[in-house]
């Protein structure tokens, strides 16, 4: 069952085609990643899902019916560019945002205080937002996103500007939400995070969805012939070797693609023969980053060819 189904969404601003016939599905109970470079159309897509922008064409189906204003009450949205009223007090801010979602009263205030305590901000509940540090303002914004207990949580680059401790706290809460059956939608250009957190993804490039599906399936599909390697030693001999199609250094690991799936064993033997200390050899493994480069990179090449022709 799909929680959300995006069908043929398009949006044009003047001459710019921001989103071009985008379709993808978000399954129930999943952590879903909308992945793409800056300016690829992620925010525009999300804004259309939220009914902030009306699409030029296409529709968003929420559990079988078209989304409207009622969807907004069920969703918590953390935009990439955060914004709070600077002069408003912390608790007041949280209660106001909950009130806009139709939640008010003692119960929600109690919950707000619980969250503040969890984020170690209880003593600042009467402080003005402008007096808080940037990181703390981020936390307030996150609490405001989830306080009304939404069924859908849309987070646009949620970890930017958070320190490791609070990043972990945020992850913890997100996983908790998932366990409670909430649908979480990430939008990010950070592949590593998406890879660790998401179980379903859609990749968007130049306004078009280039891939959509479960992360495991995608990896399986794209990982044949691929090896992820952690090592010590000099592997320059692999460059230009007949069995190696492509090599890419990702810093902590090396991605190697061989010409044929059966050649992975040969590769391991080559490494051992050359006295390379193999720390991790993961055959048929591919990072999200590699998949993205493969898909979006191809596109760039295709564009280049058109320009050259």
């Amino acid at each position, binding site marked *: 069952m799909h929680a959300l189904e995006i069908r043929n969404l398009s949006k044009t601003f003047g001459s710019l085609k921001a989103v071009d016939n985008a379709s993808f599905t978000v399954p129930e109970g999943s952590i879903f990643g909308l992945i793409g470079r800056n300016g690829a159309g992620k925010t525009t897509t999300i804004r259309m899902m939220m009914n902030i922008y009306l699409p030029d064409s296409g529709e968003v189906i929420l559990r079988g019916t078209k989304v409207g204003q009622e969807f907004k009450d069920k*969703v918590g949205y953390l935009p990439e560019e955060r914004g709070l009223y600077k002069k408003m007090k912390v608790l007041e801010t949280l209660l106001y945002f909950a009130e806009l979602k139709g939640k008010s009263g003692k119960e929600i205030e109690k919950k707000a205080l619980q969250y503040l305590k969890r984020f170690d901000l209880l003593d600042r509940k009467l402080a003005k937002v402008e007096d808080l540090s940037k990181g703390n303002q981020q936390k307030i914004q996150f609490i405001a996103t989830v306080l009304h207990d939404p069924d859908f949580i849309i987070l646009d680059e949620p970890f930017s500007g958070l320190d490791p401790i609070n990043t972990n706290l945020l992850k913890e809460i997100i996983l908790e939400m998932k366990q409670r059956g909430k649908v979480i939608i990430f939008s990010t250009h950070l592949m590593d995070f998406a890879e660790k957190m998401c179980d379903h993804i859609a990749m968007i490039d130049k306004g078009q969805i280039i891939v959509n599906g479960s992360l495991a399936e995608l990896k399986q599909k794209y990982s044949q012939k691929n090896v992820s390697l952690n090592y010590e030693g000099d592997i320059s001999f692999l460059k230009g070797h007949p069995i190696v199609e492509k090599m890419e250094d990702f810093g902590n690991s090396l991605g190697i693609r061989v010409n044929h799936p059966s050649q992975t064993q040969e590769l391991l033997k080559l490494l051992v023969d050359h006295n390379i200390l193999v720390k991790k050899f993961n055959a048929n493994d591919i990072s999200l980053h590699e998949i993205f480069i493969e898909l979006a990179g191809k596109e760039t090449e295709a564009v280049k060819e058109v320009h050259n022709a």
Partner: protein
Amino acid sequence: MLNYRTLAVIKRELREKLMSKSFIISTILLPLFMFGILGFQTLLFSYEGGNKVVLQMITESPDLTAKLETELSNIESVKEGSYVMSYYTMTKPEFDKYLKEKKESIVKEEVSGLIFVSEAAMTDKKIQYYSKTPKDISLSDKLSGPINKVLIDNYFTSKNLSPADLDFARTGVDFTSFKVTENEKIEEEGYGNLILSYLFSFILYISLLMMGQMIMQSVLEEKNNRIVEVLLSSVHPNELMTGKVLGMGITGGIQMAIWLTPVILVISTSWFMLPPEFVFSITLLQVGYLLVNYVVGLITFLGLFATVGAIFDNAQEAQSGMWPLMMLIIIPFFIAMSMVRNPNNTIAEIASIAPFASIIVMPAKLAIVDVPIWQLIGSFVINVATIFAIFPIAGKIYRVGILRTGKKPKWSEIFAWLKYKY
């Protein structure tokens, strides 16, 4: 449209604006400040600089000199000693010689000036004043009356007239104003209603500008701080705009009510005794009309100011979009002011029922002339109709504007927004 989301926005606006220190202070201080300015101006006009004015009064006849001395001695400034007068009698050739001698002391300001009343002045009233600063309005204000009186007396005594005749000749024409109203009651009227008319135009003008600026700032803040995107994930742009406009409209209405309280107290209680020339006549119903009409008009303006705030990214850029709106407030204000001299001029007549203008002009007119009921209702209906005409357009521009940032849009682009599907 008035759902819980809009209500939440209204509530926040009221908490934010109505309870803000700046609003409370400006609402209370502005009237005080206005009276302060008036008082200060009066003080400045009547202030002579503290310097002693040394004047010499010279005539060609001893009899006239004596009469002038008697009359001028009664002037307040002479009694107080701020004017030091001395009196001489000499012929024209003697005076010319004397003037030459005194020239130096006039330049040195030992003597402020010489006033020469020639033989000819007894019939043509042309007197001469020699001074370093001859254009002294406060001096001629003080002296011309008494000198005129002496000259008139002098002229007519030779004509064998009774003192009663003289008194008659001396008195100027006195306009006593009677207001003729619909219900055929004729009542004497002082300056009260003129002042009221000024007062109405002034407070309406100030309040419109203040409220307009406030909502524009508030929209700019939401846009600049990127709060708007969070808000729009909960509310529809129309709900947000409606909430803000109504919240600010209520704030403006309360401010206006506070400013009108003195007027309401004067007409509905006997706590204040105004001097007779300042007594004004206005009914509670008329004050109520002003208030309701103001709130309706204010809502139109707030919608427009909010739209301007949504179009631009910062206050500097917004200035350029604001001037057409400012003109819609300033021009009616001047029309209302001009009406005090001639309440029935055609421009004022039209402005008092025209959209936008009537918000200021109608109450000012109401205070000085009897406005037929149909005009009152007409202007109100037109104002309400304006809201319905303006808001679909303003709302659309607002919706597109609040989410866009970057380069300052051209007017042509803004018109193109109207065609956008949002």
